[in-house]
């Protein structure tokens, strides 16, 4: 029997620019014990739907039509008081970023008990017992009840929030992006908790997410939303093996997948339609590679297309053939060409050969010509960048104020003795949990920070000693791409101004030449026609477009080296692939050496020749991407890879062998820094530094398992490991 049944629900938002039909005729059933995953890109109405169900729409939101039945009760007819009774007790929600909503000045346990007593009618003792049971249920130590939120890690907070949601035994749990913004390992553990709870309590769950692999891991059925409508609904397995709507096909192909690496990801070009005036035909038609004339006129209805499967597509009959065609990214690219106006002839030659790179306009030749490698005193022509035993330490809590407060000065070892080389045109990925020092490494590479120890050689010259012209020349040759495109551009500058700034700084005096270069670069990053974008301000562009502008700014000087720090983590799934493809293509075309920094291993496998895994400021494993991913040596790498959710419900992730919780980077280790969390820890790991073992494919892992101490006695994880190996 269905617990929740939504019929033809319509939700409006009144905005200054007109009425937005955020949810437009959604019908959905959630059965008892079912776990439904609701997916779609941002702005498609997922969260609005959730808010409409529990009736917490913002003030300008209005349910204009439809019915929401919950256990046979018409929820839209309920009074405010009755609705309040229903929330939490019957329908529990975990809103987005809810782990930050714990009250920081109250113990987590008292917050939970207060909820139980006020809303659940428990007495004090029963509440305490129930709270302990709940913590147990979500895998938290019951001692933690006495702790404050700041003493919890991100994963623990998320567990506590889940415990709170389940406190009153709701019959339906709605979770909005419950694992977004969590580290892979934590994410894996939260998903595991959810999976266990589903089985133990026979929970009915509605899970809202943009990440289809999360759905594959915890849901048994899927609904896909696009532009305020459900376009496909099916059980999980058939959905993942054979999607029945072109949009689902695109979403699936847009995700890098560790288990099935692809040559090129599909990028769904274009943007969702304007919901103030939705198109009269199929809403996906503009972006669909299989569009035919009738699609623009006929609005497809959600219809049965097979066993218990619903899809809204005019061509659902031909899905078999379309599916095989959809594998080809080129097909999806065609859409873009068809959609965009015809290109004006480029004002300057847009194809540059390798030799031309960095070749300046004549007027500024003296400023711009890079010295040949021999002038730089380069050792090996092939090697562009070399890190030699580089460390970076930060001091915190010192100074006069610290002294008065009685804080001791502490040293944070952000990066410890890392060494690697990067060849021209090569791409290297840096991966690891947050706090592992990968972003600091990125900043060291472009000299936003200076190393505390060691040398960073760029073309043979040590970055620490660059002065004046050499420094300016280095600045021209190395660039950085930022995580958050909404912050990376000066909001007061037009795009032209932002893009021309680097040229002005590097002495391009002629306005016409600058304009030519800017247009050429915008064209390269697929912002066409470039002229349209010149006079826009950043707030007028979408995230995907902005990230392309950020890429263009990085490339406008024709650099040799690019650091991309989480280039797509703030972006929507459908545009991610586009940015990645463009970056990768341009890096190849321009012979750019690239360092990608990401927590997402599948993304790195897709973009990088080599991958380095960092842990507590050290590189614990580095090697060719395929080697690191398919044949991980270090136990940490193995854990990271095991934690990546796979967008395939038939592949269940292996249980994780490590726990969350990186030790504080203020400690220095005598032995292996990973010993505290390592499932294979041995005696030698505690007090002997692990050796760097390299195989014939230059695949290096820093671990005792493969060194002289491989026969050292194994240790049980526990007290002996957690104490004693810090300096």
């Amino acid at each position, binding site marked *: 029997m269905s617990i929740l049944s939504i019929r033809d629900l319509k939700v409006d938002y009144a905005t200054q620019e007109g009425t937005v039909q955020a949810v437009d005729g959604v019908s959905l059933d959630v059965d008892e014990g079912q776990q439904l995953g609701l997916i779609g890109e941002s702005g498609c109405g997922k969260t609005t739907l959730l808010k409409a169900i529990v009736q917490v729409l913002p003030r300008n939101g209005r349910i204009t039509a439809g019915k929401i039945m919950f256990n046979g009760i018409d929820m839209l007819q309920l009074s405010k008081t009755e609705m309040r009774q229903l929330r939490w007790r019957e329908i529990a929600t975990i809103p987005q970023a809810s782990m930050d909503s714990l009250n920081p000045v109250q113990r987590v346990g008292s917050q939970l008990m207060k909820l139980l007593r006020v809303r659940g009618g428990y007495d004090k003792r029963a509440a305490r017992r129930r709270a302990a049971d709940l913590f147990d249920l979500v895998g938290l130590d019951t001692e933690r009840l006495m702790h404050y939120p700041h003493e919890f890690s991100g994963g623990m907070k998320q567990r506590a929030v889940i415990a709170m949601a389940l406190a009153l035994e709701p019959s339906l749990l709605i979770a909005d992006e419950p694992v977004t913004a969590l580290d892979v390992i934590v994410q894996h553990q939260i998903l595991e908790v959810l999976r266990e709870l589903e089985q133990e309590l026979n929970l009915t769950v509605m899970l809202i997410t943009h990440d289809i692999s999360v759905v594959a891991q915890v849901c048994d059925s899927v609904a896909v939303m696009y532009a305020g409508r459900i376009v496909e609904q099916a059980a999980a397995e058939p959905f993942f093996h054979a999607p029945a709507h072109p949009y689902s096909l695109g979403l699936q192909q847009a995700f890098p997948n560790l288990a099935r690496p692809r040559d090129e990801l599909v990028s769904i070009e274009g943007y*969702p339609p304007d919901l103030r005036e939705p198109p009269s035909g199929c809403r996906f038609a503009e972006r669909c590679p299989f569009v035919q004339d009738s699609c623009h006129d006929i609005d497809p209805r959600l219809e049965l297309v097979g066993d218990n499967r619903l899809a809204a597509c005019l061509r659902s009959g031909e899905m078999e053939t379309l599916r095989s065609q959809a594998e080809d990214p080129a097909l999806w690219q065609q859409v873009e060409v068809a959609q965009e106006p015809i290109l004006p002839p480029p004002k300057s030659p847009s194809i540059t050969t390798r030799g031309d790179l960095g070749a300046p306009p004549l007027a500024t030749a003296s400023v711009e010509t890079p010295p040949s490698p021999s002038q730089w005193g380069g050792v090996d022509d092939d090697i562009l960048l070399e890190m030699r035993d580089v460390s970076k330490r930060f001091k915190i809590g010192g100074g006069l104020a610290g002294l008065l407060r009685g804080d001791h000065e502490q040293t944070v070892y952000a990066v410890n003795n890392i060494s690697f080389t990067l060849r021209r045109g090569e791409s290297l990925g840096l991966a690891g949990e947050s706090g592992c020092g990968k972003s600091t490494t990125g900043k060291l590479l472009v000299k936003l920070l200076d190393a505390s120890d060691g040398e960073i050689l760029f073309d043979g010259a040590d970055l620490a000693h660059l002065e004046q012209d050499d420094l300016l020349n280095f600045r021209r040759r190395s660039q950085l791409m930022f995580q958050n495109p909404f912050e*990376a551009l000066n909001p*007061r500058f037009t795009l032209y101004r932002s893009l021309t700034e680097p040229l002005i*700084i590097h002495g391009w005096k002629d306005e016409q030449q600058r304009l030519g270069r800017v247009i050429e670069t915008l064209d390269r990053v697929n912002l066409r026609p470039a002229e349209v974008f010149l006079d826009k301000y950043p707030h007028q562009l979408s995230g995907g477009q902005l990230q392309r502008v950020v890429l263009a700014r990085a490339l406008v000087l024709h650099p040799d080296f690019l650091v991309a720090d989480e280039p797509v983590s703030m972006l*929507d799934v459908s545009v991610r692939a586009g940015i990645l493809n463009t970056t990768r293509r341009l890096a190849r075309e321009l012979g750019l050496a690239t360092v990608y920094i990401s927590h997402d291993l599948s993304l790195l496998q897709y973009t990088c020749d080599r991958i380095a895994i960092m842990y507590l400021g050290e590189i614990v494993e580095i090697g060719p991407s395929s080697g690191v991913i398919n044949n991980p040596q270090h136990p940490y790498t193995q854990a990271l890879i095991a934690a990546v959710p796979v967008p395939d419900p038939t592949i269940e992730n292996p249980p994780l062998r490590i726990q969350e919780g990186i030790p504080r980077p203020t400690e220095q280790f005598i032995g292996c820094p990973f010993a505290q969390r390592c499932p294979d820890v041995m005696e030698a790991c505690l007090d002997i530094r692990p050796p760097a073992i390299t195989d014939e494919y230059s695949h290096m892992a820093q671990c005792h398992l493969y060194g002289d101490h491989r026969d050292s006695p194994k240790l049980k994880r526990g007290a002996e490991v957690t104490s004693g190996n810090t300096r």
Partner: protein
Amino acid sequence: MQQEAMVRDDPPGKTTAQFRQGSALRQLWETNLEVFQRDKMALFGLCIFAVFALVALLAPILAPNDPLTPLKNANGDWIKDALPYWLAEPGEDEAEGYTNEFLLGTTNIGRDIFSQLIHGSRSALLVGFSAAAAVAVIGTVVGLLAGYYGGWVDTVLMRAADVAFGIPFIPFIIVIAAFFDPSIWNVVLAMAVLLWRDTGRVIRSQVLVIKEQAFVSAARVSGASNLRIIFVYIAPSILPLSFLYGSFAIAWAILTEASVSFLGFSDPNTISWGFMLQDAFLSLALTRGAFYWIIPPGLCIMLTVMAGFFIGRGYEEVLFPRLRRM
């Protein structure tokens, strides 16, 4: 992460060519324009300033008499304590030997109050604007340097600000007045020496926020020098804030000048509204009920101070729209 369906349109009436030239300064101008377009109170404040500025400029023409010279009647006696013509009994003045043409009467030593009032606007605006400029400029520069460079620059400047916070303001001016000759410039000097502290602190905190933003790192990565980053990237964002503090400083300076004059530490040869109040107070105008001597300078002080705060509020509304809801 709002997805916009398409690139939004340009605001109407602005052509492409204008935008391309669009410099930070132009944006600043637009912000200023926005302040006065949106907030009618700010516009009102601006009008008050404009009127007073005009009066100050044309003071020698507008004032019927010299403000410092005691006036004498036909017999050669001083015209002391003359009532305004609209208060005087008919024939009374003629008996005293003069025709009453005094809009606000005369002082106890026979100076024309109306002329004093008009000339008072000169010192008020002079003190107001020069002190405001000094406070805004010093505070902005200090804030920019301390916030951007951090480290010992920050420590030195901010400890200096702490010292400035620790010095009581009015006594400080009295001490200055004791060292130098009494003059309205003492107030300007004291404000320049002490009052940059608030502006400096606020701007520093703003700079700390802006300099951590990715676009500043981006500028550094593309090779921009420190000065370029400060003046091209950071300064335009905080200049409206300097204007805000500047407009408050105008009001504050005029108020301070009035207080200091009232306490008797001003130059007896420069007419200011505060001086007029003190003069009236000492000659017991209040007990005699000479409201026409006391109220007009008081009203002028109030109007200019209000104008400064109205403009300041206008900037606040544009800069911190969240305040509006509180």
